[in-house]
């Protein structure tokens, strides 16, 4: 099974991953500007972070270097912290008081 998976890197060219992550990143941007509800905006932010994670993982696999995956790990960490803070900030008072 794992040979099959390992071969994926050789089969799936790197451009695809780059294009995919750019696409997700653009959707994230559109989402952030598109929606007014803070929750949705935060979710789109998460989406942007994830697209970068994907890109980094692809590069790490491509360069077969674990450091990028550690970086992704830290990104997840930061993203978590940000979401909690984001939700806590009383930005949209009407939503909460409503």
């Amino acid at each position, binding site marked *: 099974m794992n040979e099959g998976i390992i071969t994926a890197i050789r089969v799936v060219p790197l451009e695809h991953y*780059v294009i995919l992550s750019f696409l997700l990143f653009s959707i994230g941007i559109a989402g952030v500007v598109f929606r007014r509800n803070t929750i949705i905006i935060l979710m789109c932010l998460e989406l942007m*972070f994830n697209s970068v994670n994907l890109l980094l993982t692809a*590069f790490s696999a491509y360069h077969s270097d674990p450091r990028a995956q550690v970086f992704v790990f*830290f990104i997840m960490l930061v993203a978590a912290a940000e979401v909690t*803070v984001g939700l806590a*900030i*009383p930005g949209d008072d009407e939503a909460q008081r409503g």
Partner: protein
Amino acid sequence: MSALILISVLGVVLLYLGFGDNRKWLAPVGILGLLAALTMLLCNWNVESPLFAGMLKFDGYAMAFDMSLILLTVLLFLFGIDYYARMRENVAEQYALMLFSLVGGLMLTSFTNLLVLFLGIEILSIPLFILAGGKRDSFRSGEAAFKYFLQGSFASGFLLLGIALIYGSTASFDLATVQAAVGTSAGQGNMLMLLGLFFTIVGVSFKVAAVPFHFWNPDVYEGAPTLVTAFMSTVVKTAAFAGFYRLIEYMHLPGAVQTMLVVVTVCTLFLGNIVALRQTQFKRLMAYSSIAHTGFLLIIFLGISERTSGVLYYYLTTYSIATVGLFVVLTLAKRAAKGDENIRIFRGLFRSAPWLAIATMLLLLSLAGIPLTAGFVAKYRVFALGIEAKLRGRHGFRGSDGAGGHLLLRHGDPGSLHPQRARTAIGGGARELARALILRRGCGVAGAAAGVVEVGSTPSPSAGSPTDEVDQPCFSASLLFLYPYAK
């Protein structure tokens, strides 16, 4: 490195202190801790070794900036004593968050790995998101905090994309290898590298509030409590610029990115100065003035050479000292004027607190860059750099700089020295309040002003890296600064 650890621990200690009702011990402990960190920093002053697994490198550059950051925080803590006098709860948290943010700043000044850059920015910003939302009574500060958070994380998204792309093309996060890779011909041609650089610079210049990313600046500065605004405009800006400079110091940026930087600088200078003319709200005025000064500092980035780090350091220090002083004066004037932050409240200051007014005027002159003040020398050296870099594009914004310089004079100065209107907003209340405060705080401000002036009259050579910047008189000024506070 030890300073980093010490300050984080200090933060936790302050949190614990917060439990009991010994609120009055918070600031002194904080200051002592910071001074201890400072001494530890000084003792291994010339130890050039990268301390920790290639992630942080405490070279002269980092040392100098760390010292400046710590001293500025000490300054703000002193300011905080009075500022938080009235507030009851979660004062300890405010101090702690500031220290944590300082930790982020220290990382930024000495990173050698892009991950540390990212983490540094995040650690620097997250506490600020919260601090900005500190003033819970006013709706504005919440909204400002949210706006700041939103744009902050949005920008770090781009930063991450940039770092990822750089990693993609150079297969490493280490700053030195990346800088080398950019220089090589392969790096130049490689599109991914170009995009990576672009997005990283976008991410960092958001923190520095260059033009297309400056939108958060005025609203957040206005919304946040004055102390946080002071913190943001001095410590955060210095740390961000240190990080930015460290990132692209030895990088031979490809032509395309260079032009992008030029365009950003021109827009920042132009917009910062022009819009500031119209501001009547003091903090928004300071925001736009800080944008204008960002424009100035970016000029340095255009003509980077081995000497320019000294100029960057000198400019940032003089700017920060002057800004802190002004914010202190603002708080005094604001409290006397019952919370009104319009620049009208400065009118008649001369009548009620002459020395304070003179100090303010000196600070304003330094910000505007009028001769015989440190500000002038800083601007002069930036100019000299600009000219040496034979940059044609600069005529445009040199003019706008002039306007910027005068904006402060135009708004700040006549207001405060206007004898006729002594009896307006500031009125009786200010007189006894000012006199009461004058002894404790005023001379602090005066000290800052004196520092600024003293520095100005003896312009220092711009040669060498920040380390030999440090031993020139401007630091004696800030030390002078500490003395009156130790009441």
